[in-house]
């Protein structure tokens, strides 16, 4: 199987500060891949490099096609749904308008997708006309996930979906991610601080340290790995 997403020697910088020093990773179709690492290791920047929302260089390919010079909106139109850290919901718009934005790049309206989305997020139905900014943090994260799902992406980029949420909600969100992956074949690249949880859900994982890949492998291997256990799992 060829990889859906391939990064080869990708560097990225914020002004004069280099955040990625040559990251190489790949994501196979139908997999959940986690990116772990400490604060400042370059996890978020890796996702930004893919959606081209940071200055970067190196080889990036989606299904064999180079993402090199594509603008962020063009990357999104190729089927990359990026849910940024802090959720990226449009707080001023209603729940339903947020979902409509998910279908923005496609012909036709949201109606065709509505049933599919509501099957995973049934509570959204009652909240259609509520302003997204008035939802709780967990609800907003779910809305962001629902919107990304409406995009029918080939690849979902999720940045810290657990950030600032109660443990119950975090479990729920990862359950939905797993379900979307198993039932819909959604390919996911997820950045996560909570290594314990991420390794339970992901098939494979990469550990970043100061802007490079320090370790990679199947989740079970990493769970058993001495240094991963000590640094990220805490036992």
């Amino acid at each position, binding site marked *: 199987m060829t990889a859906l997403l391939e990064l080869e020697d990708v560097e990225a910088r914020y002004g004069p500060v280099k955040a990625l020093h040559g990251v190489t990773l790949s994501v196979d179709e139908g997999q959940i891949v986690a990116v772990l690492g400490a604060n400042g290791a370059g996890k978020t920047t890796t996702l930004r490099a893919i959606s081209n929302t940071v200055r970067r260089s190196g080889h990036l390919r989606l299904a064999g096609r180079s993402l090199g010079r594509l603008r962020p909106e063009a990357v999104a139109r190729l089927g990359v749904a990026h849910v*940024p850290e802090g959720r990226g919901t*449009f707080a001023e718009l209603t729940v339903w308008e947020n979902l409509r*934005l998910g279908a923005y790049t496609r012909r036709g309206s949201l109606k065709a997708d509505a049933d599919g989305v509501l099957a995973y997020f049934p509570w959204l139905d009652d909240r259609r006309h509520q302003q997204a900014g008035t939802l709780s943090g967990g609800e907003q994260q779910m809305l962001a996930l629902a919107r990304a799902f409406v995009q029918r992406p080939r690849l979902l980029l999720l940045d810290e979906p657990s950030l600032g949420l109660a443990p119950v909600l975090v479990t729920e969100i990862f359950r939905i991610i797993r379900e979307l992956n198993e039932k819909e074949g959604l390919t996911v690249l997820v950045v996560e601080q909570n290594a314990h949880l991420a390794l339970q859900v992901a098939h494979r994982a990469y550990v970043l340290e100061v802007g490079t890949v320090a370790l990679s492998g199947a989740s079970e291997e990493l769970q058993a790995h001495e240094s991963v256990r000590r640094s990220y799992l805490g036992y």
Partner: protein
Amino acid sequence: MSAVAATQQNRVARAAFRPVNVLLLAAAIFLLVGSLTSQIFAQQTVAGLAQGAVYGSLALALVLIYRATEVINFAQGELAMATTYIAYQLIQWGLSYWLAFFLTLVIAFALGVLIQVVAIRPVQHKSVIAVVIVTVGLFVLIDGLVTWKWGADIKFMPAPFGQQVYHWGGVAISRQDIGTLLLTVLTVVLLWVLFQFTKLGLGMRAAALRPAEAVLVGVRVDRMLAIGWGLAAVLGAVAGLMTEANQFILQPSLMQAVLLYAFAAAVLGGLESPAGAVVGGLMLGVFLNLVGQYVHFVTAQVRLPFAFAVLLAVLLVKPSGLFGRKVVRKV
């Protein structure tokens, strides 16, 4: 489920009793009762609404730009004036008024887009001050170009709605005022439908509110902002043409005072609120007309300073404007 319905009803009830809505309701009742008891009051109210609708549509243009670009477009009035001259030229070339009118709206849209792409986009991400300076530069440039092409002397255009005056039980209302009011309200409603119910409108709102997130769902933000400038120019053109029709004369200073009133209306409504701009414009128009009628020291010469005095008083009580919300920006 019923709990959800109950909270929603609560929310609706609370929205209806927001102070600004109570204020608007009180103003509407005041105007209605006044109009029923005095013919002059009724006349001045309708004329004020027509004038206010023009302020409101130019104010809406300012708000559209402000939401998308976070600056006041100082050139908005001059652009409106220039497009009115374009209509004048088209009529000189033999077109009928209304053909020239709609053709001018198309040209205005193109001009708005062109200005965004050529003059605004290159400096947009540099700094707010840079964009402000560019709009001030455009003000001077457009003013100069118009004076160079058409001269500073007064021009005349045909009256779009004719000169008739309707009489209803002693209340005289000109066709011009009714036409201005209906046309500007129609323009605003069409824009509202565009923004609220179409995919393009949704994309434009997303691009203006959160450009960084909008690109992630595939919205072409640059294109949306350019279209926004185009639509603002169309609103300006309507305001310019209606101002000309009200004043009967066309000269390069056509929109300079109107821009200031529109600015006052936009701030009064809350700079981020499109509905606020329109309501602010209508309120300002009616208020100034009534004050001009009944308060004798407010002559035509002190209308503008008086408008700003009122604006200042409102802002002391409610700094974010009538419809404004406190803006919380997360970085």
